[in-house]
């Protein structure tokens, strides 16, 4: 027995292929949407993994440095370092801000880190690590900076000496790593006008500006201009200790909160990404319905165009099920082409997306199954029409 579906497809292959391409692009968009969601979850996981930390110590009653702002004194790490089970404890700061390069602005998350400590990027894709204690930066490739670029963060110019990959905030902003002290200054120090105004206000305050105490005003101005805060302390737990136990110990300190990696994942993924997940879920559903509608429409139209032939086939003795199988096979064939085109397209245009698109093999398999199921359901409309055809209509024209 020859394959009627195959012959029909071969006969009008151009139409089939074009429809398949169109459907494929739609499916590609669907894959990309799912990939965006996976990418966001992966962003969060990579953010947590690449920090090299087992615990995040933040301001009490806040949800960690990423989901909520947190501010703790920068000497808190010393006490943390002394606690049992703590192998490394390092200050980090995070601030999302605009980074200037020449005349363009890039929105980035500026991370202040200490070299050799948790918080430093784990691997580079170009350049070198920071060797000077100030005014050098390592940027993620998504900032589109190049090694050697001069960028401006707040009041200082930095030289980009290295590039990283996949170092993005949970919001998708690429990261720029600078030495901790510079980051503290960038985060907590105001701009010149504000500083001048602040000084004037302090000088106008008679309680602070005492002529009988020379040097008092300068000391107050100096203390207002200095900053001794960080956003979090990243802790690496020593071998043989459980992060949960160490976190519990740290939480007993009244003014600090500590999260393990599992808790941070939950905060990022469940809280930050939850809304995106819903949105993307809805988009995926809509795209699936649209794809189903398109397949149904195309197959139905192709079937209607063959009504006479179907009547003849039925008359000369073709099984109903053979005809149904032909239609179903066409729908599945269309789906297969669409799936292949979609997967290829999604892989090709994925890297061009501003957000990270992650496509996993299991998503491809799942997508394939869904495409096949959708095509099967979509073909039922045409199959119903084909089955209803009366073979008698072939006689008598």
């Amino acid at each position, binding site marked *: 027995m020859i394959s009627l579906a195959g012959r029909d497809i071969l006969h009008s292959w151009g139409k089939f292929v074009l429809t398949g391409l169109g459907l494929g692009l739609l499916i590609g968009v669907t894959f990309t949407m799912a990939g965006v969601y996976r990418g966001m979850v992966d962003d969060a996981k990579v953010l947590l*993994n690449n920090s090299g930390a087992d615990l995040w110590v933040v301001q009490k009653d806040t949800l960690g440095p990423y989901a909520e702002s947190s501010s703790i004194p920068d000497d808190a790490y010393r006490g943390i370092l002394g606690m049992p089970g703590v192998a490394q404890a390092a200050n980090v700061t995070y601030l999302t801000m605009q980074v200037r390069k020449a005349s363009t602005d890039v929105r980035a998350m500026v991370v202040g880190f200490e070299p050799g400590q948790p918080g430093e990027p784990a691997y580079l894709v170009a350049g070198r690590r920071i*060797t000077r204690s100030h005014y050098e930066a390592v940027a993620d490739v998504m900032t589109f900076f190049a090694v050697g670029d001069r960028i401006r963060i707040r009041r200082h110019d930095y030289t980009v000496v290295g590039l990283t990959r996949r170092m993005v905030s949970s919001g998708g902003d690429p990261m720029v790593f600078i030495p901790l002290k510079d980051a503290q200054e960038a985060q907590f120090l105001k701009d010149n006008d504000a500083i001048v105004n602040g000084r004037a206000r302090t000088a106008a305050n008679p309680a602070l500006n005492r002529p009988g105490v020379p040097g008092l005003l300068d000391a107050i101005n100096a203390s207002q201009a200095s900053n001794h805060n960080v956003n979090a302390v990243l802790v690496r737990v020593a071998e043989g200790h459980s992060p949960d136990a160490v976190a519990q110990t740290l939480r007993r300190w009244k003014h600090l909160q500590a999260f393990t990696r599992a808790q941070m994942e939950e905060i990022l993924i469940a809280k930050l990404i939850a809304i995106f997940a819903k949105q993307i879920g809805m988009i995926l559903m809509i795209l699936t319905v649209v794809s189903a509608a398109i397949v149904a429409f195309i197959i139905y139209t192709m079937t209607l165009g063959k009504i006479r032939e179907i009547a003849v086939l039925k008359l000369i003795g073709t099984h109903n099920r053979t005809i149904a199988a032909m239609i179903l096979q066409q729908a599945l064939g269309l789906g297969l082409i669409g799936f292949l085109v979609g997967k290829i397209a999604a892989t090709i245009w994925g890297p061009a997306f501003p957000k990270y698109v992650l496509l996993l093999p299991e998503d491809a398999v799942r997508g394939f199954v869904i495409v096949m199921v959708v095509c099967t359901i979509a073909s039922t409309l045409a199959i119903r029409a084909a089955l209803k055809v009366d073979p008698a209509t072939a006689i008598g024209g």
Partner: protein
Amino acid sequence: MKLSLTLPRQAWFAVFGIALLIGFGWVALRSGPLAPIKVTVTQAAKGKVAPALFGIGTVEARRAYLIGPTAAGRVRRVLVDVGDVVKAGALLAEMEPVDLDARVTSAAAAAVRARSAVATAQAQVQDTQSRQELAASEARRYDELGRKGFVGQSVVDGKLQQQRSADAQLAAAESALTSARQDLARLDADREGVKQQRVNIRLEAPADGVVTARDAEPGSTVIAGQSVLKLEDPGSLWVKVRLDQGRSAGLRVGLPAEITLRSNPRKLFAGKVVRVEPISDSVTEERLAQVAFDQMPQGVSTGEMAEVALHLPVVSGALLIPNAALRHHGAQTGVWLRADGRLRFVPVKTGEEGPDGKVQIVEGLKGGDEVVVYSERDLKDDSRIKVVDSLGGKTQ
């Protein structure tokens, strides 16, 4: 041949189908989690590393002076302004004498009066002396007369008593003279003191220098210790450098330095560490050092920001790798070694690091070892890798 008519159609479809399958296969193998991770490698090689310490600092004057009065007063006149070059001893400003002149006059008058008091006391001494001499001689005569029986004992006693009283009066007059003299000395000293204060309202330059601040204008009232002018020696400018405690190993006096001023970033000034502060900043965790310029630059202001690089001795013959190759696994620092076609994490011990990113490996590697420098993703022991020339990160 009729066959050829149908062939193109089937052929085209077959071409499309094959292209699709090839594309799919390529996609599956080259990207996504199935694909090998692209890395670049380099060989560990011997070379020189020139480690440097880096810090930022501010330009300060080693010798700076606060010129002000030693007593509260009002500024009378200020003779110099910011930027003026002055010589040691030059009069810079003057305070109002206020009542000082009157006090000098009053002190002088008091001294004069004291002198007259001394004279009076002296005269009194003379007077009592003469009376005492008379009383003494009379007492002697009457004593003799009494012994001879010419006068009664009571008359003799009377005359003796007169002698004693005259002695006492002389003593009193002498001590009055001494105290008048002491009073004169005191008032003289007072007068000197007020005169000295009169001198102190002259604010003079303690050394050569440049005026850097004019803090009080004529007519303002200042208290003791408040500055009217600030002076500094422009030849004594140095940079107070702050270095991270953790990265200040090898800091010592005499290290050659390269100073870059914020106001002139393109020019490098040579300098030297002249002092390492014995007290570090425990809050900011920084060590402090003073770096002097070899040649004083022109047009530099104090408070200006500077970046200083201190050059430590060059280490030759060190086994070097780029610091981008270092990875941290927990507490261990190491590199990914590519040997026999396999990947292995090797802990290393690092030595000096140069500002160009080359780091010395003291233990763990030998020359010629191939290490992974850049990688697309974090590597694991069983990662499949593909060695490429560069990972496409743009370099200028």
